[in-house]
């Protein structure tokens, strides 16, 4: 038996040697991969959060995040070199474009929808108002390619990055081990940066984790109770969304023929935007007409204008919409219909209390965190 073992080991050894010699005689040409080098950064999961949904095999490194951050803030990713990811996703407003109903791209073009916040994305099931993108890696593509947003293509981006004042080749080398700039690496670097954007330090969070139960005022606590009974079926859990798609009764039946002569461009866009059929475009299922993502409410104080088309500018309008403004349609969410009555019954006072509570979800630490800021503007930068 020992003899057999001896031969077996010998055989395996020879095979391994053979494999090795083959490798040395033929130097392998490693294709540029997205495998990052260096020690991984573990994702810190806040105590009151569920487990993240993003695949755990995804390795995140400091060099990868640093590269993603520089890319995120670089206008060279757009056709006219002026629109960066950070143009419509500004940190001071939880990575949204405050005051802009619709995303505002190159040459002052307007896109179709309101820019969603970039926060806590590793918990998301899918992305955007209609869930059309199902992996974080692919989220930047929508903005990069949209002619009304960054209007760019990878060839042009690669050229600009290779000739940039920023040493991109060096940064790709640090992150991935070789200097090549590939679309896979670029997108994965953005994924790595975005995965770090976790907002979990609001007053509500500290209250919820029991770190400091005196942090909410009496009015805010009452607001929380009201929120739990009236809003939290959809704006569920600690992420304040169930990630589902629902028709929340926004007036949505305008037709192109309604466009009138003499309307401003803005008015036309607004009218057409109300015809957006939402989730239906992705599933082609009639039951999904006019359904949009239930958004998270974290930092909601800063993420206005609200709804997929940014039609509401302040939270009071949003609450009033749910109380008295619901428009009926075949796909209206059943939770917004009680017999013949539409909407969620709420007095003015109750609405005010709920808004007071919503503001406890604001996370100034997140919006000021220097690790997420424009690297050219902070002394933390090594550029």
């Amino acid at each position, binding site marked *: *038996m020992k003899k057999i*073992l001896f031969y*077996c*080991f010998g*055989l*395996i050894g020879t*095979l*391994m040697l*053979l*494999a090795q010699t*083959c490798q040395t005689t*033929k130097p392998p040409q490693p*294709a540029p*991969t*997205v*495998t990052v080098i260096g020690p991984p950064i573990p994702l810190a999961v806040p105590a009151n959060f569920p487990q993240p949904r993003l*695949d755990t095999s*995804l390795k995140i490194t400091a060099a990868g995040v640093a590269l993603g951050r520089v890319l995120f803030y670089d206008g060279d990713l757009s056709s006219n070199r002026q629109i960066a990811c950070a143009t419509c996703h500004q940190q001071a407003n939880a990575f949204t474009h405050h005051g802009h109903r619709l995303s505002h791209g190159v040459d002052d073009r307007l896109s179709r929808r309101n820019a969603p916040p970039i926060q806590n994305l590793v918990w998301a*099931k*899918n992305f*955007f108002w*209609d*869930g*059309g*993108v*199902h*992996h974080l*890696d*692919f989220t930047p*593509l*929508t903005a*990069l*390619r*949209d002619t009304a947003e960054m209007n760019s*293509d*990878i*060839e042009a981006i690669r050229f600009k990055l290779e000739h940039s004042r920023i040493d991109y080749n060096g940064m790709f080398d640090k992150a991935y081990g070789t200097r090549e700039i*590939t*679309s*896979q690496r670029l*997108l*994965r670097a953005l*994924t790595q940066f975005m995965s770090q954007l976790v907002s979990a330090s609001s007053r509500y969070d500290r209250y919820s984790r029991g770190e400091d139960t005196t942090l909410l005022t009496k009015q805010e606590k009452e607001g929380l109770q009201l929120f739990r009974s009236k809003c939290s079926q959809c704006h569920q859990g600690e992420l304040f969304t169930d990630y589902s798609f629902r028709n929340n009764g926004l007036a949505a039946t305008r037709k192109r023929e309604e466009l009138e002569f003499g309307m401003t461009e803005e008015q036309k866009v607004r009218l057409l935007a109300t015809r957006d059929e939402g989730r239906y*475009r*992705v*599933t*082609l*299922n009639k039951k999904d007409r006019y359904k949009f993502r239930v958004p998270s409410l974290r930092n909601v104080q800063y993420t206005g204008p609200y709804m997929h088309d940014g039609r509401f500018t302040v939270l009071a309008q949003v609450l009033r919409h749910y109380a008295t403004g619901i428009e009926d349609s075949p796909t209206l969410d059943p939770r917004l219909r009680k017999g013949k009555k539409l909407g969620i019954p709420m007095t003015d006072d109750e609405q005010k209390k709920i808004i007071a509570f919503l503001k406890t979800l604001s996370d100034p630490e997140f919006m000021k965190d220097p690790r997420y800021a424009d690297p050219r503007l902070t002394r933390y930068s090594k550029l």
Partner: protein
Amino acid sequence: MKLILILLVLSSLVALPHQRTPTTKVGDRHRVSIHFSLQVDEQPLTLDSLRYTNRFGERYALSSLAFYVSNVRLLRGEQAAYAIPQDSSYFLIRAADRPSQTLSLPQVPPGTYTGVEFIVGVDSLRSVSDISHRTGVLDPTEVTEEDGAMYWEWNSGYIFLKMEGYSPQAPLDPSGRRSFQYHIGGFGGYDEPGLNNLKRVRVLFPRALTVGKGAVPQVNLAVNLNQVFDGPNPIRLSRTPSIMFSPASKQVADNYATMFSLQSIQNQ
């Protein structure tokens, strides 16, 4: 002792993949090529030439044509098949790029093969995988001058077949041209069942193809693009000049699934 033996067998299994590449093995594997001969009713395709007519008498020219072929399998009778290794089994056939029209399968084991099977499009598993698996023709950022992007970024997924052109019978488009454009995709949905236009195509060989020592066998498949209009669901250019991510795309996909046939097998 038994345990050690099991461990040994296991370790040799683990070691095996490492010695898959050595040149010693190449001797008993062979290159087979599959050529897609783009045609319209037996005439070779010429782009931008208004010389084709569908069954409704609508004249048309094609300005752009591209489609994905993936998950290629060489059949060995009814039951068995040799599947091209997954990562090497994605191809984009483009009318504007002649080399793309010939697939080179480098590592086919010797034997006799009775047909070829492939998917027109990109399978659902690869359509939802992360970016590290999207290299080469699967790069979602890849855009060619002639055929543009083959990927929908707003609704993650590949355009399986893109065919664009013009026709005097097509209605005027907003830019004042009489154009038509069919962008067909849909891998079946990710979160919930959705549009599924994945088509598995099987072309059988009348006589078995023998792969062994000697020259490189080439399988020539005729691709009759007129079937996009004249397949089982006849399509009028004048009525539906633009079909993209919509229920109507199913009819186009059913049509193009019938456009492949065997033309010849060379080097036997």
